[in-house]
């Protein structure tokens, strides 16, 4: 089956939903697809209150923000495709969608906004394939979305914000967190999250890593050990913990497959989470019709993703003449100001510089040799 649309948004998380709201408001013919049965993405699992500016939904819980966004989208004329996975985004701009209720659909859209989010990182250790070892995102999905507690005694690996937040949520759900271990010599998560955990009496062990999981059919324990500054286990420091679940919160990687298969230029930007498609301040990639927003173009927070989505939505509307230059500029500037605020201070400075660098390289790649259509033209002339 073939379909056409003005705009296709891949991913119904905070970024995708915010883009959809902007496009719906200018009456664009827009399709929003998500591989889950329900839109909202990671917001559906975020039961904690968000940081941020008082003016922009700070202090609200992620699940409530998801509900509000979903409500706004449902009032607008936006087609939502739940349970739809995009299998490929070919270099002619066609989306191959495995649409939940009607099989494979090839969708041609004038503009595509990629909002696919991120993948969880993992790392191997002895017996790491035993049932009971899972990513923090998976655990959060089971616990907060499907209300299934995967274990009673949990070892959390990783003391970044995700590790600290999910550990706290495990306590809220009635599980016991035996320890949070972190291979680095300091806790990378926010201080307030650290304090929240420490007050509950859960120990956070730095310079400690997991050596192996114990058990025959499922996790029955874990062996942890101290590590030196180069993360090598120190002999004789092994300790055994009785746990039934090992949760890995060791970072996220942008989900860039679709942008890559479309031919977007991918660069390595470790400060933003690894390999990501180049994009400018309007979230446009080096391919004019493709925009990228949210965690798939830098690992940040939901509030940032929402502003990026908004900017992409406005830019797309402008590029399709649904918004005039002046209105679009004004609206974009409001969102960019909020974005700047969210990335302000020393903690946001690295992201800000990396994003500026990316924006410059986008212009470069757009004008130069890696422009795919221009590249193909060159090829055909040459042939």
């Amino acid at each position, binding site marked *: 089956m073939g379909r056409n649309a003005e705009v296709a948004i891949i991913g119904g998380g905070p970024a995708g939903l915010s883009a959809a709201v902007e496009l719906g408001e200018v009456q664009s013919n827009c399709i929003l697809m998500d591989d889950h049965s329900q839109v909202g993405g990671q917001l559906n699992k975020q039961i904690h209150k968000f940081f*941020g500016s008082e003016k922009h939904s700070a202090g609200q819980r992620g699940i409530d923000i998801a509900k509000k966004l979903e409500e706004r989208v449902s009032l607008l004329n936006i087609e939502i495709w739940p349970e739809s996975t995009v299998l490929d985004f070919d270099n002619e701009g066609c989306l191959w969608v495995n649409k939940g209720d009607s099989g494979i659909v090839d969708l041609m859209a004038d503009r595509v906004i990629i909002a696919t989010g991120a993948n969880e990182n993992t790392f191997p250790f002895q017996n790491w394939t035993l049932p009971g070892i899972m990513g923090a995102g998976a655990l959060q999905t089971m616990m907060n979305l499907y209300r299934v507690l995967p274990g009673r005694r949990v070892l959390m690996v990783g003391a970044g914000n995700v590790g600290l937040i999910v550990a706290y949520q495990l306590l809220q759900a009635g599980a016991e967190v035996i320890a949070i271990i972190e291979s680095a010599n300091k806790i990378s998560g926010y201080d307030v999250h650290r304090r929240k955990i420490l007050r509950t009496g859960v120990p956070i062990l730095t310079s400690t890593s997991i050596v192996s999981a114990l058990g025959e059919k499922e996790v029955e324990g874990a062996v942890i050990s101290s590590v030196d500054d180069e993360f090598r286990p120190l002999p004789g420091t092994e300790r055994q913990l009785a746990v039934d679940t090992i949760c890995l919160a060791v970072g996220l990687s942008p989900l860039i497959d679709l942008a890559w298969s479309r031919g977007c230029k991918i660069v390595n930007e470790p400060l933003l989470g690894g390999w990501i498609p180049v994009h400018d301040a309007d979230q446009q990639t080096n391919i004019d019709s493709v925009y990228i927003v949210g965690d798939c173009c830098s690992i940040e927070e939901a509030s940032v993703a929402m502003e990026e989505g908004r900017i992409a939505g406005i830019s797309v509307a402008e590029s399709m003449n649904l918004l005039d230059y002046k209105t679009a500029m004004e609206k974009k500037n409001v969102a960019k100001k909020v974005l700047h605020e969210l990335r302000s201070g020393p903690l946001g400075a690295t992201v800000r510089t990396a994003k500026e660098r990316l924006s410059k390289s986008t212009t470069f790649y757009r004008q130069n040799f890696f422009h795919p259509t221009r590249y193909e033209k060159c090829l055909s002339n040459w042939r």
Partner: protein
Amino acid sequence: MKNVSVIGGKKNLTFKNQLIIECYEPIPCNPCEFLCTQKVIQVGSPITNLPVTENENCSGCGVCVAGCPGQAIFLLQDSGVGSTLKVSFPWELFPLPIKGSTVLVVDSEGKQLGEGSVVKINKPRTYNETAVITVEVSRKLAPLVRGIDRGENNLGG
């Protein structure tokens, strides 16, 4: 930190209500400033400023305690008489302690400090599921109290 040292050196609190804000990182966050109707907490611009408090105007309502997304605000209250102070802190765990029960209070590291009694559990709808629990503790311990022990026999005992 500044608040704690002031209290440590005197028998009574300098002010009737005193906020302890454990917010030491420049996170872009400012709901506390807008929650306070008495303008006790100031963040200002840029938004990454750390909160500054003017405790003499604090009415002790506890709205900021419930509203801080980082659960980083604690309230110390001094009635001026008796040998105890009241400490209020945010609580998002289950079960809630029972009003009137004796509980073990803990410091910021989760270490047990001693006993206290639960005098108030405030959880109106506007707090958005966060409860603010007030315990009565001795003057000596009170400035260090950040919560209560979660131990099985402790809650609702």
